[in-house]
């Protein structure tokens, strides 16, 4: 199974050397105002083949406490800086805001989706300086396609419809303004763009509270006309979605209400919308956090054998979407076993490193740690903010 990973890595390395000419030399010559910020020195190691300049970490913070924060690890000087956004925007009242939910790099900008604050904060990825604030009520996840950003939202935009239907907002990347929106299903979550279509999963987690049922639908929107084309019936409590260019892959969360089902994957053809058969082990692979590299056909997850609290049997896993194969790496017996509450992850495919966010007890500061892909080696660890969860890797364009 490790062969898959190795294969993926070698593919990436090849692409990297073909397309990307950045190396440690030019990166270390970047001047950024945030160089002055004090940080914790991290033993990053050799850092060979690493094209990235920074690893950003979004700490979600606690709902209603306005304590979301942005940290980063700068690979060139091996420094981990906490709360960088507040420090670089000192006169911005109330800082980054409340309850971050997604973090993405787009070109040289960094986009933080602030669920509790009802806004998307756009900042420079070079020095974390504020660029724009785009109001989006209850935003969840963001993706970029063809000059636009698309943000899912729990907020209802059609006052005549059922009041807990969510929506999607379209943002013009030139003006940084909302240009369009559409009403979706209950509590839409992650979204992906495949073949000029935006696929959004509808979770229905809040709907379950009042109406005893989750949503099951994947909404397909034309990225050209921004109209709903199709609704695909899938699993309950969907949260994650990605694609491999041909098919979309979705994963759900376990039944947080009654514990009647566990999480797993499904796959649908992006043209016919028909379900593509997956092996049972992938269908039943529990997911608590997922990152994907569509261009590499790779999905990485962390999950737990026992999902209901107190969770146990944590593992990370890699899925090859092309081969429909998965490889599990249990935490037990590795340095990763010390992780109390794995809450988020990222994979640096160039160095074969896994970054795992440990949210600890949810209300006190967590940690970020780096492991070799097979978890056998722990590379470094840094103290983060409250509920570290979302990562973004950045190399300057």
């Amino acid at each position: 199974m490790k062969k898959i990973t190795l294969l993926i890595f070698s593919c990436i390395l090849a692409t990297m050397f073909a397309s990307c000419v950045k190396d440690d030399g030019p990166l270390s010559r970047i001047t950024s105002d945030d160089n002055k910020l004090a940080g914790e020195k991290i033993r990053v190691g050799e850092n060979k083949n690493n094209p990235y300049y920074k690893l950003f970490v979004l700490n979600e913070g606690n709902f209603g406490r306005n304590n979301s924060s942005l940290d980063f690890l700068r690979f060139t000087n091996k420094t981990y800086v906490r709360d960088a956004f507040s420090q670089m925007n000192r006169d911005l009242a109330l800082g980054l805001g409340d309850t971050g939910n997604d973090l993405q790099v787009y070109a040289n900008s960094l986009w933080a989706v602030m669920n509790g604050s009802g806004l998307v904060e756009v900042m420079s990825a070079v020095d974390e300086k504020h660029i724009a604030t785009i109001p989006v009520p209850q935003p969840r996840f963001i993706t970029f396609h063809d000059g636009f950003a698309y943000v899912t939202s729990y907020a209802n935009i059609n006052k005549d419809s059922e009041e807990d239907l969510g929506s999607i907002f379209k943002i013009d990347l030139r003006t940084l303004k909302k240009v369009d929106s559409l009403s979706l299903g209950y509590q839409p979550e992650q979204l992906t763009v495949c073949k000029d279509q935006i696929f959004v999963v509808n979770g229905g987690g809040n709907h379950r509270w009042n109406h005893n049922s989750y949503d099951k639908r994947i909404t397909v929107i034309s990225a050209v006309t921004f109209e709903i084309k199709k609704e695909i019936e899938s699993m309950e409590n969907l949260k994650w979605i990605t694609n491999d260019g041909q098919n979309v892959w979705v994963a759900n969360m376990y039944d947080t209400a009654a514990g009647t089902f566990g999480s797993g994957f499904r796959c649908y053809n992006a043209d016919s919308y028909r379900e593509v058969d997956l092996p049972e082990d992938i269908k039943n692979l529990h997911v608590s956090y997922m990152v994907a590299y569509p261009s590499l056909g790779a999905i990485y997850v962390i999950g737990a054998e026992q999902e209901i609290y107190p969770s146990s049997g944590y593992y990370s896993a890699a899925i090859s979407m092309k081969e429909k194969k998965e490889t599990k790496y249990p935490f037990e017996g590795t340095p990763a076993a010390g992780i109390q509450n794995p809450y988020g992850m990222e994979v640096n495919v160039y160095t074969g490193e896994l970054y795992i966010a440990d949210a600890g007890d949810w209300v006190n500061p967590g940690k970020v740690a780096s492991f070799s892909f097979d978890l056998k080696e722990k590379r470094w660890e840094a103290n983060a903010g409250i509920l570290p969860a979302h990562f973004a890797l950045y190399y300057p364009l």
Partner: protein
Amino acid sequence: MRKLLTITAVLSFCGVPAVHAQSLSDTLEIKESLVSAFRIDNTLASQHILSDKIQAAPNLADAIRLFSGIQIKDYGGVGGLKTINVRSLGSEHTTVMIDGIPVENAQNMQVDLGRFNTYSFSRIELSSNPYSGNIRSAREMGSGSSLNLSTDYADLYGKTDSFIVRLHGGAFGTFAPSASWRHHGKHYGMTLNASLRTAHGRYRFHETKYIRTPEGIAGYDTVMTRQNCDLTSVTLDWNLLASTNGRLKVKGYFYGSGRGLPGAVVRRPQNAITCKDRQDDRNAFLQASYEPYGLPLQVKIQGKVGYDYLWYRTDPKHDAQATPISNHFRQTSAYLSAAASGQIAAGLNYKVASDVLYNYLDSDMAGFAYPNRVTTWLAAGADYLAGPFRVDATLVYELARDWFRKGSDAGGWAVSNATRDKVSPSLNISWVPLLNVLRFSGYARRTYRLPSFNDLYYTMVGNSSLVPETADQFGLKGLFQYRFSRTMLSELEVEGYHNELDNKIVAIPTTNLYRWSMYNIGKARVNGIEAKYGLSYDRDGFQSDPKMDGFDIVIKYTWLRALDYSTPGAITYKSQIPYTPIHSGSVSASAVRKGWRIDLNAITATKRWYNSTQLPEYELDPYMTIDIWMSKILPVRDGNLTLRLSLNNILNEQYEVVTRYPMPGFNALGTIEYCF
């Protein structure tokens, strides 16, 4: 018959040679001379507050704030929830009672002190120690600590009918008219109070953050206004005190309110600053207690029926950040208690008590569990007095049994994991080596806090396998009193205590921040020292209590280390638990003279943390507030006109008790009261 009208209850011990147990004739005499004067309390260091001080305060929580060793968890503003937490046990461990009968809230076990009118009560007493001499219910004997509010019942003397009209108002757009009718016959007295309170509740606050940098200090200081914090409330209460062959107390109470919930102050886009959540409440109860006279033993029977309604709703149409919620909760409760005490031999007394409580919670939430609970308390104890020593031991058995529906479909009633029983022992020892000068006492006890209905059955949050939280409490106290002269005396009291909390109920989000659930995983160890020094002056040589011409100064200091022992090895291990200042203190001074009364209260607390890390990022700044309350009584025609002015937070301190819930700065409230 002698003690029946002692409206200011008898204290367990007090070195002040003052009249405590006033007979009917004493009361009459004192009261008449007091009619046009304020009084202050002679007993400085004890944990009680009498009516004049209570009425001087703009609200009940501000008066209670002066007790030492407590934290009032205050969400700020006129409608903000205010609950009391004694010695870091958690607010659920404190039983709030009116006339010895608990104020019921099985749903979340929190009692909002902001809802009570100051003029309705003649005495507030906080006890962390179960022994206080008078007969107690089994439930009170088994509670972690208790805050008792004593109703201001009508006196059986003077004019048959008297009336009080009040107008209270000022800051926060407060407009609060109220009226009372007091009537008495030969053997009964009754009061009827009605009040309305309306306020827009808005206040400005500074949102400030400074960061120290090599180039200097940078940061922001923004003035913001707290929005959506209006309050409209109505209170009606009827109180009867009758004495024929015993003492009967009856209280009927109704409270209705509608309020805006301003929510936490978080970053929001310019056009969507305000949270629009609202809450409506209706609380009603009827309670009675009866103590017959002429029996060889002391007996007290108490009962209560209550109904509470709460409607919480969000407004997604006007607040895009709101998740659509509209939930109604209806609680019904019934309570019955019987207690008896008597003498076995000289110096040896026994006490027995038994209580039964029924609670039911109904809601229109999907998949609701409709919990029912019957709780029984059985208590027995004895106290023995031998010279300067007194030993008091009690044992309380508590049995709680719940019935609830499992899952969404009403598939019958379930009782699995729903029976909880515990035994609470307690031992109190006191030693008085020098009467009226020196006294030592100590206690050791174990108490429990039952999980609330929300902890157990709140849809998708509750965890029905919770066990009660355990609190082991130990304390040692020394009191030294010294009388300088006929008119001046002082008291010094020092108390040290140690509390151990186990199986603490802690909320944990299960997969994301919307899905919290409750677990018995907390552990805390609390060590505290409370020191109080009081100096009191009375021109009349302490002939009356409260006094009418003199002053009091009380200085209180509390050192509190409440450490989290939940997870060995975690960053939180042995760190101060949230919202607990290590040092806190107060200076409270009162003076009365010729119809004037002035109170000055300074309260301070050092930094606190909103989580258990003790890191500067999660710190709440230290604060000091100073309040000045002034009153003057003027005889006008046949009645008395009272003018009150409270200047609160005169330093305009910007502070938070609960993170992201700013407290109001300087504010002034006034009252005009006419009694005839």
